[in-house]
């Protein structure tokens, strides 16, 4: 549950309504609508869900049910540099868990959390399909291949200014 209360601005509400309208306010397009909203806001706070609920006439409880079902959707803002560690099998057998542990230790975060300064967030994901590069770490759009626990410090250093 998101503890953050945000206030939507008029133009945000307008944007959400536009997104819904572009899908004909069709309740069956809920997931596509949520994708677009998450692209716009970076996450899906309760207030956004309430507007979507209104527009698509889907109970907000159902929308929350959908958001908490799909791991792609999030109700907490990601860090400026979201770090994702691939936990696909190829990466796992090549030591992804140790890499993840190292990130957890370095950042003092658990998976799904964001640093207090909003700089980094940590998540694990299932197979980015770069198995030849296993273990793989993504920071934002940048891919790091064949990452060893020792590399973690250096990766983080790249984003420290």
């Amino acid at each position, binding site marked *: 549950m998101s503890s953050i209360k945000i206030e939507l601005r008029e133009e945000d509400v307008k944007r959400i309504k536009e997104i819904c309208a572009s899908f004909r306010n069709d309740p069956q397009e809920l997931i596509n609508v949520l994708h677009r909203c998450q692209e716009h806001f970076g996450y899906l706070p309760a207030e956004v869900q309430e507007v979507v609920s209104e527009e698509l006439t889907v109970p907000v409880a159902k929308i929350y049910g959908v958001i908490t079902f799909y791991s792609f959707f999030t109700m907490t803002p990601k860090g400026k540099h979201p770090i994702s560690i691939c936990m696909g099998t190829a990466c796992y057998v090549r030591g992804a868990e140790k890499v993840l542990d190292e990130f957890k230790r370095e950042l003092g975060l658990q998976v799904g959390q964001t640093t207090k300064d909003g700089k980094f967030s940590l998540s694990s994901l299932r197979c*980015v*399909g*770069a*198995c*030849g*590069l296993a273990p*793989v770490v993504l920071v934002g759009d940048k*891919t790091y*291949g064949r990452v060893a626990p020792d590399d973690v410090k250096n990766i983080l250093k790249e984003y420290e200014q």
Partner: protein
Amino acid sequence: MKQIRTLADLIKIKDEYLSKSKESEKKDAPGGKVRIRVHMGTSGIASGARAIHDFLTIELEKRNIDAIVIKTGDMGYCFAEPTIEVTLPGEEPVIFGNVDKLRADEIIEKFIKNGEYVEGILPVNYQIIN
């Protein structure tokens, strides 16, 4: 491209494309061009294929080599990515793996200019239906 209304329309487009590429495959012919396919699926791009693509495009032009650089999907050689396929006019295609800028440069200078093999060749280890 023109609307396809009949099977003949489709085959016409096919033939146009084939003859165009045949033209470029002719050895020493005026239309002869070096064709380079850069394998740019997710895995290839994650391994740095985009940089290789850009490097090749710029360098080939700079070095005055008439070549076509094509972006394609991945071949599946994840262990050796980024990979590129180079077809010299009239020759069989040759695939190179683990291509970095250094190797790309070598490929231009040695293979493309002189037909001299460089390291990193990945033999074609599959049959393909035609």
